[in-house]
C-alpha cells in the first residue's frame, strides 16, 4: 500500500481518534489517505494551534495527542508547540511532511531542516530515510512519547515516501536498546525515605506534574493522609490532590499563597514527587527549604540533584514508588506542625479587595462555584496566576497551563484539544487580552467544528504581568505593555467569526454571563470581562528571592 495509507492505518492501530493539523504539498498524500479514514481531523488555522490542541488533548485525556503539518513553514510553525509540550512533558506525536528525498539539502521549495531545528525541544525525532523505517518509527514514536518521562516526538516524512508502495506490517514491539525507563524505584531508597518520613516532625509533600502524568493522585492523597502531611503543589501539579482537601495548601512558588510558601520554608522534610524544582517553584535555591531533608521521587534520573540537593533520590514511576512507600509507613500525629500551618492559613489567606469593581479573582471564583467540574486552560500572565490561585481544582487534568515555557497563545488551542477529548464537559480558557490575540484565529476552527469552548478574557488592556513587573521593579515605566485598544470589541470579533460575544463590566453581571455561556453548546463564546486595569497578582516572591520574602498587596 501507499506510504500515506500505511501511516493512517498505523495511527488507527495506535487508537488515534483525533488529529489536529493543516495540509500542504509535502503532506498532501497523507491527507489524501486520511480522506478514507474514520479519524476526525480538526483543521486549525495555524500549525502552532494544531500542536497546542494536540497537547491540550493529551493533557486532558492522558492519551497521546497527534498533529500534522506540512514541510517548511508548516513545520517551523509547530516549533513553539513542541517546545511547550517538551517543557511540560506532554505526550504528543507530530508528523511533518518533508520535501522528497532527492531534494533534501538543496534548499528546495518549502524545505526546512525540522529535525535539526527541533532536536533540543523534542524527546526524540525522526527523519525517514528509507521506506522500511516508516512503520517502526511510528511505533517507536508513540512508545517513546507516552512512556517514562513523556514528551513530544516528531516524525519527518519525505513526500516520496508517502507516495511509494510499502509493505504494511506494523510492528508489535519496539526495539530500542538504549531506552529503558526505570519505573520501579529502588527498595533500599524507598526504605530510607520511609525512615525519614517516620522521623520527621514537620513534613511537607511537594507534588508536581509527574504525579498527574503517572496517574498517581490516589496514591498521593493516601500518602498525605497516612503520614499525615500537607501537600503543596507546583503549577503543573495542580489537581494532583483536590484543592478542597483539608491537607492541600494549593500551589507554591512565585505566586503561591503565603501559607504554602511558609510551610515549604519551615518544614524539616520535603517529599518531592514528580517535580523538577523549577525556579518559579523554588525561588532562590540557596535558601530553599533550609531546614529540610529532601526525598525526590522522579522517573527521570537527570532531574534528581539537577536543581536542588537531594538526600534520598528515588528513580521510578510515581505511582509505583508511592504504592511501595505506602506499604511501609504509618500514621504519626504531629500536632504542633499542624497547628502552625493552620495558623498561617487563617492569618494569611489568599485575598483581594472586595468592592464594586470588576476584579479577575472574583470572576475566577465564580467560574469555579458555578461550574466546578469545568476544565480550565489558561493563557500566560496575570490571568494564569489568578486562575491558579482562585480556581480550586478538583481532579487531575482539570487545570491545563503552560508551566515550563510560559507560552502566550497556548490556552485557547489547548482548550480546543481538551474539548475534543471531552465533548460533554465545559471547557474555559482563562485568558489575557494579549495572549488571546496570539491565537485568536482559532475562533474560526471552533465555529467550523461546533466546538463550544469558552474564552473568559481578563481584559485589562495591558500585557498585565509585564506591566506588574514594570510597576514594582522598573519605576512604573510602562514600556510597550499598554495595549491601547479600548475601542476594540472582542465580542464583535467573536461574532464576526460566527461565535457568541458577551461584554461584562460589573461584578453583578458576572453570573448571568457565565450561565449564558455555559448554555451554549455549539459555538465558541467569548466573554470580554473589562476588569480593573491595574490589578496585581499577590502575594509575590520576586524572581531570585527566597520563598519567605513575599510582597503583599494592599486590601
Amino acid at each position, binding site marked *: 500500500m501507499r506510504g500515506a495509507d500505511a501511516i493512517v492505518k498505523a495511527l488507527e492501530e495506535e487508537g488515534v481518534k483525533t488529529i489536529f493539523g493543516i495540509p500542504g504539498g509535502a503532506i498532501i498524500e497523507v491527507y489524501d489517505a486520511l480522506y478514507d479514514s474514520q479519524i476526525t481531523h480538526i483543521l486549525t488555522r495555524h500549525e502552532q494551534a494544531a500542536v497546542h490542541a494536540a497537547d491540550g488533548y493529551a493533557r486532558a485525556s492522558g492519551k497521546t495527542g497527534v498533529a500534522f503539518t506540512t514541510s517548511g513553514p508548516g513545520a517551523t510553525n509547530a516549533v513553539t508547540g513542541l517546545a511547550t509540550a517538551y517543557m511540560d512533558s506532554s505526550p504528543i506525536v507530530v508528523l511533518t511532511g518533508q520535501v522528497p528525498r532527492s531534494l533534501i539539502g538543496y534548499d528546495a521549495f518549502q524545505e526546512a531542516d525540522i529535525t*535539526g531545528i527541533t532536536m533540543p525541544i523534542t524527546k526524540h525525532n525522526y*527523519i525517514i530515510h528509507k521506506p522500511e523505517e516508516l512503520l517502526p518509527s511510528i511505533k517507536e514514536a508513540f512508545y517513546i512519547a507516552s512512556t517514562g518521562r513523556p514528551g513530544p516526538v516528531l516524525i519527518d516524512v519525505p513526500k516520496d515516501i508517502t507516495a511509494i508502495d510499502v509493505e504494511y506490517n506494523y510492528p508489535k514491539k519496539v526495539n530500542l*536498546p*538504549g531506552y529503558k525507563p526505570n519505573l520501579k524505584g529502588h527498595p533500599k531508597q524507598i526504605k530510607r525515605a520511609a525512615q525519614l518520613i517516620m522521623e520527621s516532625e514537620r513534613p511537607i509533600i511537594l507534588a508536581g506534574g509527574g504525579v498527574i502524568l503517572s496517574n498517581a493522585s490516589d496514591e498521593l492523597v493516601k500518602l498525605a493522609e497516612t503520614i499525615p502531611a500537607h501537600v503543596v503543589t507546583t503549577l503543573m501539579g495542580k489537581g494532583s490532590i483536590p484543592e478542597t482537601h483539608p491537607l492541600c495548601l494549593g500551589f507554591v512558588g512565585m505566586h503561591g499563597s503565603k501559607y504554602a510558601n511558609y510551610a515549604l520554608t519551615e518544614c524539616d522534610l520535603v517529599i518531592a514527587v514528580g517535580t523538577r524544582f523549577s525556579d518559579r517553584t523554588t525561588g532562590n535555591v540557596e535558601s530553599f527549604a533550609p531546614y529540610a531533608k529532601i526525598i525526590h521521587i522522579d522517573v527521570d534520573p*537527570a532531574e534528581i540533584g539537577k536543581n536542588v540537593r537531594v538526600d534520598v533520590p528515588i528513580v521510578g514511576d510515581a505511582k509505583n514508588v508511592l504504592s511501595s512507600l505506602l506499604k511501609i509507613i504509618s500514621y504519626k500525629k504531629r500536632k504542633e506542625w499542624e497547628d502552625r500551618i493552620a495558623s498561617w492559613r487563617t492569618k494569611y489567606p489568599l485575598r483581594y479587595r472586595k468592592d464594586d469593581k470588576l476584579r479577575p479573582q472574583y470572576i475566577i471564583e465564580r467560574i469555579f462555584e458555578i461550574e466546578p467540574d469545568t476544565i480550565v486552560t489558561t493563557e500566560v500572565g496575570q490571568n494564569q496566576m489568578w486562575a491558579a490561585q482562585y480556581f480550586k481544582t478538583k481532579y487531575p487534568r482539570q487545570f491545563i497551563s503552560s508551566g515550563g515555557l510560559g507560552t502566550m497563545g497556548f490556552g485557547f488551542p489547548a482548550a480546543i484539544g481538551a474539548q475534543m477529548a471531552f465533548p460533554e464537559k465545559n471547557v474555559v480558557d482563562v485568558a489575557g487580552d494579549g495572549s488571546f490575540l496570539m491565537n485568536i484565529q482559532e475562533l474560526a476552527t471552533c465555529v467550523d467544528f461546533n466546538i463550544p469552548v469558552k474564552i473568559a478574557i481578563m481584559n485589562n488592556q495591558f500585557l498585565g504581568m509585564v506591566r506588574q513587573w514594570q510597576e514594582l521593579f522598573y519605576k512604573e515605566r510602562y514600556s510597550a505593555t499598554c495595549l491601547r485598544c479600548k475601542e476594540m470589541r472582542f465580542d464583535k470579533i467573536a461574532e464576526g467569526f460566527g461565535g457568541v460575544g458577551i461584554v461584562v463590566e460589573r461584578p453583578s453581571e458576572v453570573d448571568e454571563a457565565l450561565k449564558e455561556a455555559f448554555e451554549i453548546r455549539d459555538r465558541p463564546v467569548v466573554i470580554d470581562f473589562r476588569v480593573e486595569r491595574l490589578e496585581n497578582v499577590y502575594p509575590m516572591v520576586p524572581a531570585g528571592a527566597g520563598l519567605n520574602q513575599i510582597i503583599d498587596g494592599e486590601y
Partner: protein
Amino acid sequence: MSNNNKRSKYTISVLVENKPGVLARVSSLFRRRNFNIESLTVGTTDREDISRMTIVVNGDTKMVEQVMKQLNKLIEIIKVSDVTENSVERELVLIKVKATSETRGEIVELANIFRGRVVDVSKDSLIIELTGDEDKIRAFVNLMRQFGIRELARTGKVAMQRGEKIVALNP
C-alpha cells in the same frame, strides 16, 4: 559539597547506535545545556551497528553527572560510562615540522625517542605520526616548536579501562 565539586577533566565513554544524526544530537545536547566539551571522537566498534564516542569534558563532578544523565536520556545512546580513572588513554597526532638538512637528523632522533614515526619526507619538511597520552604528546609538540611546526592535526582522545572492566553492549 565544595571539595568534591572541583573542576577537572573527565573522560566519558559512550556506546551509541550507529545511525545518522546521533553526533548532531550529542553536540546539540552539549550546546543547549552549556556543557564544556574538550574533545570528542567517534568510531565504530566490533559491531557495525554500534559506535563508540569518547568525550572529554571540563567541569565539576555535578556537571559531569548531569552530562552523563542527559546523554543517557538520548534514545540512541546505549551506554554511558565514566572512564576517567584507571584507563588507557591515547591520542594520535600528525605534525608537519620544518626540516632542513641540518635539523632533519635531530628531528628524526627525537621522534624515535618518543616512538613516533616519520610518515612523509619532503625537501623542507617532515610529517611525524605520534600516539600517546596527553603528557607525551604535549612534550613532543613542545620539542618540535623550536624547528617550526607548519601544521598539526590531533584526533582527540580514545580511552579504555584497564583489566576486566568493559564498556560494551553485553558485558
